[in-house]
Each structure stands twice: as structure tokens, then as C-alpha cells.
């Protein structure tokens, strides 16, 4: 999808004046933006800038203090996700979304095999044919470049990078419209990080997925994101196309952020 077509299409996600307070402490304040299908949005900022709070609010895990999050759901059309009933919201999260956690232990069931982890979203959608789910799982493990003969190994027997690949497969197998990623490459060494990023970029482009990726790593943002939101003290201080923001930062904080990236 070209950038022009994308802008012409209906928004997938619309966030209006979203604020979240923890008592008198601000988590994020007055955030508004729109996202279109197939777009990859990066949220960058330093620790404590409200990235994770914003992601939790967007992904339905933390109700905002004020403001709205509207999403183009498959079953209910464009609707405020916190206006849906709890079962409808949970079903929408299962069917339309994926969530890749920073720590694979948060996103995987460590007691069951990697294959069952990948197949679980299908069972949650009501699939009841073992053979079909098994072959879909094998196809996805292959797609994320894992050794398919290790399908029945427990997640703890995989390396960190492999666990993250299992998590990616688990969150894409059911064909979501939008995937949230919270520091998906944090905690991995640079070579593994590079290969995982490469893989995710390919998958996102192939599937035409919309992705919201939270990161403090400018290199990840540069590689993955079409558009960036720069956050500081709970507020969005700058938005724009990734290359534009990183190559010609306007806000003083963004300039500081970009200039802080270590060069080798």
C-alpha cells in the first residue's frame, strides 16, 4: 500500500486527548493521533517518559483517566475499546490484536511447548482440528526461521532470541490487524537483535500489518517505523515521518535524543 492510499483509507486507530494519571503523577497527557492500516508507528522516548503507560492504554490493559481510544474492530466497526463490554473487548483483543512483550516469559506460557504456544491463539478462536493447527504452527515456525523439529521443546530450552521468535509467531498466526510491540528487541545482543528486526520488518511488510512499537532504541525506530511519536514527561513533543524526525529534529528534546545515540 502506498503512502497516498494509506492516508486515503479509513483510520484503523484513533486516539483522542488520551490522559492517564497515577494520582497526582502524570503517566501520559493529551495524546492524540490516528493510525492507518499497514502503518508502523514508533513511540520513542527515555525511561519514564510515558511510553509504556501509553501502550497499556492503547492495548486495553489500562483504562485511561480521560480521552478515547477508537479501533476499527472486525465485529463492531469503529468503536471506543473501553466502551465495549468486557467479553467483547477480550474477544476483540484475541481476534484483532497481538502483543509482543519485551520479556518472552511475559508473553509465552512457559509450561507448555513452543508449538502449543504458537497454536494457542488458533484454539482461542475456536479451531478444533489438531492436524490443521499443527501444520499451521510448523509453517509459522519455519517462517520465523526456527528449527521445526524443535516444535515440542519447552520455551525454556530455547535461547532468548528464539523465544522472541516464538512470541512473534504466536502473535501473528491468527492474522491480527494490529500488533503492539513493547521493546521487542530489548535484552538481546546486537547480532540477534539485527536478525530479529530484519525478520519482523519482512513479516510486517508482507502481511501489511499495522504495528505500534515502543522502543528507546533509535536504531530500532529507524529500521521499523514509518512514523514516530517522541514522548517526554508524558507528553508527545514531536511527531512526523521517521526519517524526518531523526534527520531534522525540531524539538530540543528530540535533538538531544538523536545526538545521544552512540556511534561506533
Amino acid at each position, binding site marked *: 500500500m502506498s503512502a497516498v492510499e494509506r492516508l486515503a483509507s479509513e483510520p484503523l486507530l484513533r486516539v483522542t486527548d488520551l490522559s492517564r494519571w497515577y494520582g497526582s503523577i502524570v503517566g501520559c497527557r493529551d495524546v492524540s493521533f490516528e493510525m492507518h492500516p499497514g502503518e508502523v508507528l514508533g513511540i520513542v522516548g527515555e525511561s519514564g517518559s510515558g511510553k509504556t503507560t501509553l501502550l497499556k492504554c492503547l492495548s486495553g490493559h489500562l483504562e485511561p483517566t480521560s480521552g478515547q481510544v477508537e479501533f476499527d474492530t472486525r465485529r463492531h466497526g469503529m468503536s471506543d475499546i473501553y466502551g465495549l463490554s468486557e467479553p467483547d473487548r477480550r474477544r476483540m483483543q484475541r481476534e484483532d490484536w497481538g502483543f509482543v512483550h519485551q520479556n518472552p516469559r511475559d508473553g509465552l506460557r512457559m509450561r507448555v*511447548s513452543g508449538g502449543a504456544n504458537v*497454536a*494457542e491463539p488458533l484454539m482461542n478462536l475456536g479451531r478444533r*482440528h489438531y*492436524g490443521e493447527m499443527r501444520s499451521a504452527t510448523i509453517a509459522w515456525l519455519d517462517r520465523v526461521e526456527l528449527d521445526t523439529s524443535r*516444535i*515440542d521443546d519447552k520455551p525454556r530450552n530455547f535461547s532468548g532470541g528464539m523465544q522472541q521468535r516464538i512470541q512473534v509467531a504466536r502473535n501473528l498466526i491468527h492474522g491480527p490487524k494490529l500488533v503492539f510491540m513493547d521493546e521487542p528487541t530489548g535484552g538481546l545482543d546486537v547480532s540477534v537483535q539485527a536478525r530479529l528486526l530484519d525478520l519482523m520488518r519482512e513479516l510486517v511488510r508482507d502481511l501489511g500489518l499495522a504495528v505500534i512499537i515502543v522502543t528507546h532504541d533509535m536504531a530500532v525506530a529507524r529500521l521499523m517505523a514509518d512514523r514516530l511519536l517522541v514522548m517526554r514527561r508524558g507528553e508527545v513533543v514531536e511527531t512526523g515521518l521517521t526519517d524526518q524526525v531523526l534527520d531534522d529534529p525540531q524539538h530540543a528534546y528530540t535533538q538531544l535524543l538523536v545526538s545521544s545515540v552512540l556511534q561506533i
Partner: protein
Amino acid sequence: MSAAESRPNEAERYYNYAYLDEQTKRMIRRAILKALAIPGYQAPFGSREMPVPYGWGTGGIQLTAAIIGPDDVYKCIDQGADDTTNAVSIRKFFARVADVATTDNTAEATIIQTRHRIPEQPLKAGQVLVFQVPQPEPLRGLEARETETRAMHAYEEYGLQYVSLYENISAFGRIAATAGYPVMVEERYLMSPSPIPKFDNPKMDDNEAILLFGAGREKRIYAIPPHTRVRSLDFEDYPFEVQTWEENCALCGAEDSYLDEVVLDDAGNRMFVCSDSHHCGQRRAEGHVGPMAGHQLANPVAEDGQ
């Protein structure tokens, strides 16, 4: 369950009848009614301390104590047998505190308390089968949070239970789980049938009797009223199956009952016998003969007279 005939020293005898105080029994009866009204739903109740440890049947004992009356006939089995330690002691307990007649005979009993089996002989309307349940939550092994499992029940999100079956097939090539095999009740609530063998699962479907389940430590009661649909979970390409044996019962020759393997010596000799001791004895009395009929195991030491 019905009013007592006039008996000597009635006031003393029926003060705190059947061990529990009257308020507790009322509370448990309310939970039972709620459980019967919502088949398969785990109704919470204020489980009391009982004179046996958790895991020895405290849930089942409390259920029995709440529903038993002087005219009831009580049977208690453990793994199908009437003559095991646990069954004998619980049966004696109710013979003493509830002043009821006890029996081994499945057909004669009005209340049957059981651990890990459903009797072979079909149950009839008017009978109550009370199960002892260690873990009422079938999803607990996969989801540790009670808040989350309650939401899953409320919203009928049961995909997770299939993950355990999926794991079974991946590891063993078939659904190898044999006991506590999860069931759907009236296509609404997912339920653990307590650790009965899956051989007994089909008996729960459209059963004439009332099936009550009590978990003392976990403080939950659930129930299957008569003539309720109970379906064991499975995959389209791996349908539900029950255990089968190549042998028949060594004592009574039964082909269709659940068999226990009994090791006889160190030389590898063994025999398969009915786990339901009353069923086996009744068949032998009717003249059925198995390949090892007359073995000393067929004549256990008689229980002390009560």
C-alpha cells in the same frame, strides 16, 4: 433426607445431626441449590474444618453431611472399592454421627460418596452421587490467576483447555490424559469431573441421579442435575476415547468394567480385577467366573461389624 420417625432421646440425638451445625448445613444447601441451578458452575461456599485433613474428602463429607437424613442408606467408595481404609472410616463416621444405615450395594444406597470412580451399575433417579474433589478448576494448571479463570468461565473462553490436549497429542500421539478429563456441561461450563478415570466420563451424560462435587480446601461446590448433557472435550481428528483392556476381570470375567492391575508377586505375575468391588462381588454371586476365580483376593477379610 426425610423426617425421622420418633426415636428415643430425639432431642439430643438430632442436635447437630450429622456432625455439622444447622447453620453450616443451611449454608451448604444454599450452595448446592445454586450449583444445581447452574450446572457445572463452581459455587463458592464457606468450607469448614473437618475431623480429617484436606485431601481426605472434606468437601465430599460436608456435602454428605448437609443432605443426609436418618432414612438415607449410605455407601462410600474409594477407587471403586467399599473396603479401603478411607471408605471404611468415612462410612463409619456417618453411621455414627448421622445414625444411618450403610450398605455396599449400589442399588440400595440413596447417597453414594465416592473418590475417583462412578459405580459400574447405572444410577437411578433419587440417588445422589457425592464426589470428593481436590482441584475444582480445570484451567488451574495452565492459568494460575483465579481472577482470570473466573473471567474465562464467565465469558466462555475455553480455548486454553485445548492447549493441554494439544500438548498431550504432541507428546504421546494421542490424548493420553486418563483421569480428571475435562468436560463441557450443557455446552456452557467447562468442568473438572474430579480425578475419575475418563472411562467414567460417558456415565455422567444424561445420568438419572444427582451428581454433586465438593472441594473442601478450594471451597467450591458444583453439580450436575439429572439428565444433563455432559461432553468430554476432544479434537475433530482426535475424538474422545475411553480406556480399554485386553484382559477381562480375573475374578468375575467382566468385559465392560474398569479394571485395576494388581501385582501378585516379584515374579511378574499380576491380575486385572474390577475396581468396583460391589459390582465384581455381585457378578460372582450370580455365577460369573473369571480365569482366576477363587483366588484369595476374592475373599477379603470381613469388615468389623458396626
